């Protein structure tokens, strides 16, 4: 059976990228994220994981290589165009609009969605998903705790009903319950056809959820494969997952 749309929702092909005149951070990196798949990117601090996501979302233009979204070359497109094509990016650290209410933050997630009824439905959806969003709806986002802010950011990114989601350390600062909600959401998105590119410091936890794992080192994918296999790889375990495999 021939499918109309290409299997890979997001493709980064031989990407070379860096900041200003400094040395390249990514040197010929290739990653593909198929439909209904969670790809987890691990690597040491400063390896360039966040940079990969910035290139994917259009915040950083690569010096070489191609970015494809749902089969279309979007290398020259900016973040707005990629967002309209269904790509959402949740930044590392905190990125709520601190002097706006939680409600305003979440609604801004639908800035590019013109239909009011659609926005209203999605607001109800994320409120249901993250109780903190509905409980703190009229509170200034900057006054929430770090973990609560992260949930608001995640809710905001879901407002476009994304096809591809880039998550940069989404569980950072979250309590176990909120972490579980976020991971549940990631799995739910995968199950409804979304492609997820996940960067996690908690690599072991992330690889347990992910389908494919990629290890980033020296600006390239150093190793990649099915996530369970990476979890069992002794060398990887030693270098990046901190400690030995249990058993």
């Amino acid at each position, binding site marked *: 059976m021939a499918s109309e749309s290409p299997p890979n929702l997001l493709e980064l092909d031989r990407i070379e990228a860096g900041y200003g005149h400094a040395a390249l951070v990514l040197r010929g990196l290739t990653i593909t994220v198929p439909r209904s798949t969670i790809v987890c990117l691990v690597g040491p601090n400063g390896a360039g994981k966040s940079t990969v996501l910035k290139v994917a979302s259009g915040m950083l233009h690569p010096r070489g290589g191609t970015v494809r979204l749902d089969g279309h070359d979007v290398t020259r497109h900016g973040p707005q165009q990629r*967002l309209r094509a269904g790509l959402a*990016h949740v*930044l590392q650290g905190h*990125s709520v609009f*601190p*002097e*706006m209410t939680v409600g305003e933050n979440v609604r801004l997630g639908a*800035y590019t969605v013109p239909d009011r009824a659609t926005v209203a439905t999605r607001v109800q959806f994320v409120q249901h998903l993250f109780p903190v969003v509905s409980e703190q709806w009229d509170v200034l986002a900057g006054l929430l705790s770090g973990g609560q802010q992260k949930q608001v950011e995640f809710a*905001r990114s879901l407002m476009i009903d994304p096809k591809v989601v880039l998550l940069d350390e989404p569980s950072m600062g979250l309590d176990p319950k909120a972490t579980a909600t976020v991971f549940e959401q990631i799995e739910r998105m995968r199950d409804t056809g979304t492609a997820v590119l996940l960067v996690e410091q908690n690599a072991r936890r992330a690889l347990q959820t992910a389908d494919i794992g990629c290890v980033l080192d020296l600006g390239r994918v150093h190793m990649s494969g099915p996530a369970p296999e990476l979890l069992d790889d002794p060398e990887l375990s030693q270098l990046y997952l901190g400690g030995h495999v249990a058993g």
Partner: protein
Amino acid sequence: MSGGLFLQSLILGVLLGGLYALMAAGLTLYFGVMRVVMIAHAAFLVLAGYLAWFFTTRTGLDPILSLAVTVPAFFVLGVGIRRLLITRLKPATMTMMSVLLTFALALVIEGLLGFTFTGVQRRIRTGYSSANFEIFGAQVAVVKLIAFVLAVVALGSLWFVLKKTSLGQALRATIQHREAAELVGIDTDKVAGYGFGIGLATAAVGGTALALDATIYPSLHWHWIGPMMAIIVVGGLGSIPGAAMAAMALGIIHAFLQVPLGATWAQTVFYVALFGTLMVRPQGFFGGRLAQRF
């Protein structure tokens, strides 16, 4: 101080405070969207004042009507200045270099005003220029009240735009977290341009309001830039409500000090407040959270 004088000073202070708040609003916008310190803002205020004066002497119409031309013109000018000049500065040194750039801009405007209108002091004359009205026994100049009303209307409109329109949401989002704004689909470059334009448009209203009640001359802007900078630092850089509250507070103190100290010495209240703020609470008194990030 007698009860009558007290009331007179208070009313005068509130009226002045409103005008100061409008004059400083633009500065907080430039800083908010671009991290630009706009030294030329006061020069644009004076320019708007001259245009109002010119309009009235030529047409005989009310100076306030000149706003129909100057407000849109200043908006476009603001968008243009940002696009052609400000965006050429490197982001890393934006704040510092913008001081130099806009200082030069202020000199250019001052020079052009002197060249076009000469250095002679000008004053707008209207039917109500010397009229007074009485409120609770205090005598207040009608032009001061009109300037205050203009300021309230302009600030009210600004509040409405920022809080209730989609452009305003986009503008505030851009000010508060530029990357996140970009990632929800806001064209932050365009929005920053509009922010600059709106900032300069407030200068058109502020300058016209100022010129209703003041003698204008090309170098007048040097007199105003200091107090305005003091207001936005005391209020907390980038915070419009903060600037408005600081303007009101300093306006009232200024009005009260004018009685015992005279106009020149009363002006020092701005510098005292500026130094005091920098020593005690450098992030400003009202803008707290946002200002702390710079």
